[in-house]
């Protein structure tokens, strides 16, 4: 049988174990509110026993390990849910700004201004010889152009803001990936990486922050290092202890500003992968979606509508007669200001503002890109509204041409939405040389559809944001249920280990008393 000194050691092992366990409890309590923290447990085991004769005597307790409670699967699910949630949230926030552009309170919206323009036309139709109605018409046309342009500009501003966000977020991504790589390096240098709970928790918290920015996939390799790659294509961001930096490069291939940045991952000093089009989730993915998909779609439709308006009104204007005019005016109503006063030229037979016929590189003329910003009311007509072609004859009271313009308001198929191109028009007769291939609603339908599209998209992203938030919260609740610190449990553990410590101390006291007894009896 073991001696008294062995008993002291048993007591000592109890004290040490209880103290270690108390440390773990204290660590848990201290981290009760730390994001991503997984509760730790002191795993105690009885020490290997000693043989005395045929008896096995236990010799106390050892702290075998401190284990963390975490689920790799749950962590990955949370990461994905967070990416989706932050993307939906950012898309919705971006669309809220866009939606104010298309709001129509009856005076400032695109639809209202279109109506005002057609009202101006109708007023001229009622009084074609009246100079004041013609001036008023030019005024409403200028307001319409200004409204379209200010809204177009607002959308472009939103696009620029999204682009700036992309650049800023890329920097944040790099901060997180480098920290993850550093933690990977630290873990790889340890003999038992799996037991470094805190480093793993910190790393997971970083991964979640990263997931808020970009959609990612991750897996832990045999050395306990977490490898992170981008969604959709698997471009690596973190491989072991190496972080691949993300950078932005301005793409000037369109040839016309505004230029936006491409997002690239630099695999080494010479090789980089362009990931701009593959990012869909996370705030970064959402900003790219707003910048490259949603807003350009709205801009394109505004351009199409402006081109339709310019084409139809210009065709009638150039074949119609000015007040007391002797021949068709041969000038456009809406022009780009770059031709000499919008004089109808053979190069301009499609009746679109001239610089739209020279489209930006990479876009077809039938995309009508840039039409809105190129639009202006022909300066000749602004200077002399009597040049507005209300008539189809030299008679001052003839309003047949302006009536034809008024009819455009309720006419369908006035906007080329299929990039089919507008028919060219014989400027003398106003007759289309080749037939129209367009299919669209009326101008006001088009404006309404545009506003509704924005609203629907906002509604859809709002719902997605709520749903993904629910999923993320449910998953994180599930994880907290398994891994979170419960103060009641910790309080109970605290008492348990405190009592254990007291008992071990008492046991040492007993051994001490026994030893003392022995020494006083036999020691002298």
């Amino acid at each position, binding site marked *: 049988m073991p001696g008294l000194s062995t008993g002291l050691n048993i007591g000592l092992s109890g004290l040490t174990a209880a103290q270690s366990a108390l440390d773990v409890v204290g660590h848990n309590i201290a981290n009760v509110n730390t994001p991503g923290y997984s509760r730790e447990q002191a795993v105690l085991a009885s020490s290997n026993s000693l043989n005395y004769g045929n008896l096995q005597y236990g010799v106390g307790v050892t702290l075998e390990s401190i284990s963390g409670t975490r689920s790799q699967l749950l962590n990955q699910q949370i990461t994905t849910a967070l990416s989706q949630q932050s993307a939906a949230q950012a898309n919705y926030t971006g669309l809220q700004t866009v*939606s104010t552009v298309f709001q129509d309170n009856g005076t400032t919206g695109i639809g209202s201004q279109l*109506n005002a323009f057609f009202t101006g036309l109708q007023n001229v139709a*009622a009084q074609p010889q009246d100079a004041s109605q013609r001036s008023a018409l030019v005024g409403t046309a200028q307001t319409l152009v200004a409204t379209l342009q200010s809204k177009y500009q607002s959308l472009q501003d939103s696009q620029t803001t999204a682009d700036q966000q992309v650049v800023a977020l890329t920097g944040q991504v790099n901060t997180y990936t480098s920290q993850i790589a550093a933690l990977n390096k630290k873990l790889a240098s340890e003999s038992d990486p799996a037991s470094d709970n805190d480093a793993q928790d910190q790393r997971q918290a970083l991964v979640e922050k990263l997931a808020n920015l970009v959609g990612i996939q991750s897996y832990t390799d045999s050395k306990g290092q977490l490898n992170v790659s981008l969604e959709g294509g698997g471009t690596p961001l973190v491989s072991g202890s190496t972080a691949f930096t993300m950078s932005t490069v301005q793409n000037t291939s369109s040839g016309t500003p505004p230029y936006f940045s491409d997002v690239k991952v630099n695999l080494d000093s010479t090789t980089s992968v362009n990931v701009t089009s593959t990012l869909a989730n996370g705030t970064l993915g959402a900003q790219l979606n707003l910048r490259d998909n949603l807003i350009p779609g709205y801009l394109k439709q505004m351009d199409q509508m402006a081109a339709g308006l310019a084409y139809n009104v210009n065709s009638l204007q150039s074949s119609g007669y000015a007040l007391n005019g002797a021949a068709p005016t041969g000038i456009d109503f809406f022009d780009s200001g770059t031709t000499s006063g919008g004089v109808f030229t053979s190069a301009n037979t499609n009746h679109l503002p001239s610089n739209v016929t020279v489209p930006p590189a990479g876009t077809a003329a039938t995309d009508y890109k840039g039409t809105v910003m190129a639009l202006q009311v022909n300066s000749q007509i602004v200077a002399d509204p009597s040049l507005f072609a209300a008539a189809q004859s030299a008679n001052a009271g003839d309003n047949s041409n302006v009536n034809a313009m008024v009819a455009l308001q309720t006419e369908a198929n006035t906007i080329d939405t299929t990039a089919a191109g507008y028919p060219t028009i014989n400027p003398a007769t106003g007759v289309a040389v080749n037939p129209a291939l367009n299919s669209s609603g009326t101008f006001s339908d088009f404006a309404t559809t545009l506003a509704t599209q924005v609203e*629907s998209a906002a509604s859809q992203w709002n719902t997605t944001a709520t749903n993904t938030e629910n999923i993320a919260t449910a998953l994180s609740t599930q994880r907290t*249920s398994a891994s979170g610190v419960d103060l009641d449990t910790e309080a109970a553990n605290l008492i348990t280990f405190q009592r254990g410590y007291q008992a071990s101390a008492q046991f040492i006291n007993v051994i001490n008393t026994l030893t003392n007894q022995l020494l006083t009896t036999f020691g002298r």
Partner: protein
Amino acid sequence: MTIRVPDPMNNSQSLLDLQRSQARLATYTAQLTSGEAIVNAGDDPSGTASILNFQASIDQNSQYMKQIDSATGFLQNTSSIATTVNTNVTQLMELAQEGMSGTQSATSQAAIANQVDSINTNMVNLANTQVQGKYIFAGSATTTQPFTAGASTDPVTGLPVAAGTVYNGNNSTVDVKVGSAATTPTNMPGDTLFMGGPAATHQGTASDLFAVTQSLSTALRAGNTADIQTAYNDLKAISGNINGSITQLGAWESGISDLKTNLTSLNANLTTVQNSVQSVNYASVITQFTQATNSQQATLATMAKVNAKSLFDYLA
């Protein structure tokens, strides 16, 4: 089975719920204070579409009503002048009858002829009426004076007349749009009204009011009873023509007036329907607001209770 409920779990779920109920409260408050049902982007895409569609229709209808008002103004002026001219024609017929009675001396015949001449001048003036700076009887050539002195033909004798009245306008009507598929004329060309048809074929014929009046005057001065009779018969036919035109003008006027009544009630309906989408339903929103307030208070109270107690409170 016991489910572990660690502390942050309670808080994160309750916090989310609290934030949601606060967001709902904010929406209801915005709805109640603004009176608008749609306050956030994406609240009601189809509602937004119908509001915009209704607004477009309302604006268009309002414009059509303005066009109708303007057209009605021109048509009323036209028909009131036509009525005055028709009264003049009746006077001319009475004078012609006097001239035919055979009891008049040459002097009194000349006096009657003078009256006829002055009525003629008066009618030409009326036919040259301008409304808002435009000649209403010139067809679409609204800046051209429609009736001036010029060489014409005497419809009764068939002889050329040096100082006749000629038409310089055209035979077009000026139409305005008063509905998505409806137009209305705003004028009646002077040749149609006063000459019975396009000037090219009717000027200086038996249906030309001014030429007939002139030949009546000539016949009176010459004491040619047969010519006076012819002129009288022509005037009778012309009066019938003018009456027909007045009826036509009245029909146009009442047509667009009916249209305006329809547009007015249509706009009233559209506005009502638009309001039902656009404006807040106070009763329902206030109820929802109260529910959200209760739910928020309940959440807050529960959070306070749950967070108040811990085992640590009971450990000395």
